[in-house]
């Protein structure tokens, strides 16, 4: 589904990603862990197409296509979803309106008919349950005045609405209390099928108690320095990032 080869990317001429290689197949869950500043969020942003970062080398193939040639919204309509670490507020634009534009613009790009108003509202109702999102939140402006937990739930709600093939969740667990973490993680699990894949970016092992990864990658200084099964996360939790650093440096 996704193949990243020797990906290098920089911001303001500072190289952040220094040669990433990664392959993700349908049905898989990959966890990417690593210390602050190792390039985790940059990788997520580059996959989504954020032009703030310049890709200087390497290639990304997604569903057989050269991903780097596609605009941000094209990538989205082809099933790439980014769960934001810091979801953005859009004052005055209701969640309903926002989601309706998103769903129908994606459908338009794919050459599908827009959803009727009633079909859309029905879909909203169903998906809200997945993350136990309070009904009234969808009538409020996008992320405006949402608590930290509500914002993250809202990201997963949007993921549920858009049914992506490849979801990249950037520190979706940060800022969540234990109950919210469970709800969000359960939501993500419910959305999992054998055809879609998830990349979970996190600092902490605790999220992986709920979302069991097939692979754990450790990103350090712009490179994936270690890949193993879910047990790697536990080992990392126990030994800390210094353990990785001491192995590399």
């Amino acid at each position, binding site marked *: 589904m996704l193949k990243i080869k020797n990906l290098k990317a920089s911001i303001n001429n500072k190289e952040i990603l220094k040669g990433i290689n990664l392959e993700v197949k349908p049905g898989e869950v990959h966890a990417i862990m690593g210390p602050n500043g190792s390039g985790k969020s940059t990788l997520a942003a580059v996959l*989504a*197409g*954020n*032009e*703030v970062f310049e890709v200087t080398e390497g290639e990304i193939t997604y569903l057989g296509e050269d991903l780097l*040639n596609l*605009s*941000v*919204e094209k990538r*989205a*309509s082809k099933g790439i*979803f*980014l769960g*934001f670490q810091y*979801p*953005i*507020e*859009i*004052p*005055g*634009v209701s969640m309903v*309106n*926002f*989601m309706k*534009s*998103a*769903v129908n*613009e*994606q459908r338009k*790009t794919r050459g599908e008919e827009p959803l009727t108003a009633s079909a859309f509202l029905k879909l909203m109702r169903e998906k809200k349950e997945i993350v136990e999102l309070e009904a009234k939140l969808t009538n409020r*402006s996008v992320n405006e005045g949402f608590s930290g937990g509500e914002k993250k739930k809202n990201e997963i709600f*949007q993921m549920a609405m*858009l049914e992506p093939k490849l979801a990249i969740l950037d520190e979706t667990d940060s800022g969540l209390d234990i109950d919210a973490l469970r709800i969000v993680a359960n939501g993500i699990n419910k959305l999992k099928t054998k055809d879609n894949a998830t990349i979970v970016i996190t600092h902490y092992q605790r999220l992986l108690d709920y979302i069991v990864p097939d692979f754990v990658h450790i990103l350090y200084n712009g490179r994936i320095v270690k890949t193993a099964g879910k047990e790697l996360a536990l080992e990392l939790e126990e030994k800390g990032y210094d353990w990785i650093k001491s192995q590399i440096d």
Partner: protein
Amino acid sequence: MKENEDKILDEVTNSDYKYGFVTDVDNDDIGKGLNEDVVRIISSKKNEPEWLLDYRLKAFRHWKEMEFKNWAHLDIPEINYQDIIYYSAPKPTKVLDSMDDVDPELRKTFEKLGIPLDEQKMLSGVAVDAVIDSVSVKTTFKENLAERGIIFCSFSEAVRDYPDLVKKYLGSVVPYTDNFFAALNSAVFSDGSFCYIPKGVRSPMELSTYFRINAANTGQFERTLIVADDDSFVSYLEGCTAPQRDENQLHAAIVEIIVNKGAEVKYSTVQNWYPGNKEGLGGIFNFVTKRGIIGESGKLSWSQVETGSAITWKYPSCILKGDNAIAEFYSVAVTNNYQQADTGTKMIHIGKNTSSTIISKGISAGKSDNSYRGLVKVLKGAENARNFSQCDSLLLGDKCGAHTYPYIEVDNNTAVVEHEATTSKIGEDQIFYCNQRGIPTEEAIGLIVNGYAKDVLSKLPMEFAVEAQKLLQISLEGSVG
């Protein structure tokens, strides 16, 4: 990807003003220049009574003594008032069967603008007075409205058919001494709309005037007078467009509204005069004086969506004269490229328990400048006056300007005056967020801007609101990238 985006934005900015065509009709004009004779010619072309000519001449003499003072945050090039044609009327291309018939060319023009003049084809809820250059060409649904005693006609007809009403109210809210452009308008005004709603009558449909500048080198000086008698109600709409030309054209209008005891008037404008090209060449200079006076327990509500004109100088105002009068001003002003706008309102509280609300949303893009200028004045006798003002500015890009000039003068210590102001930018992160959800940049800007202006757009009549939403998006296309 960046290149691609630029290309799309280019295409859109090159084609954004879709009302820029010219209608090919011969015009009966009086040539360039302004002097007393010109004022007399205009008056005689309209067969006006002596008192109106006198009014014009007084205004003209006053204007001649005036000097234009530019206190606004606007860079206004010097206007040569002798280089303007003050009266220009389209000549019919064929002999018309009746007075009410419209030249087919002009009919086509209005159809192209989305304003069909056949009553059968029109939106059933809206009556239209169509004004092109210096004359009104057609007023629809006049008969239906007359059944309820509502007078809705061109200003010239009103002078002919209802001279007493016109004489009583003309200049009663905006005297010709008011300001430079008000004096000029009072001397040379050509046509516009007149509307009278009798006591206790609710207008069954929206009344509207559509202003179109067509002829070159011509100024448009229209005059609108609305009188809502006791306990009546009317919702009034105004739309404007002009051809795309390299020269600037002057539009200096006056709108006067009289809201009697217990009456309510809603006045909505979608101003889409030609804004000039991307380099700032051409466009309309829009210098407009709009004011209403509100009697006891009356209500006047101005809503405006200003997207056009090279320069906008406009402050629709309210005099809250009667006790318990209510006034509202809702404004969205968009400037792009080299447009300049200095717009806002004046709320003059005279009566007791009067309340006013100001919601202003400025949106600046390109290299434009956008200012809010407002005055809230509470006079000595205005016990318990209330005002709430909210003035927000939204910036797209970093080459544009937004300014807020709120003036508050309070002479009564029971008054409560609140003012809130914010300035924000459409962030790249907001656009990226929308893009990531599959919403392309153009639509994202539309969504964000409409969200920002929601409080104002929701005050517009339904069909106007839809048009305004699209207009906002079109006006700003190409502004981010």
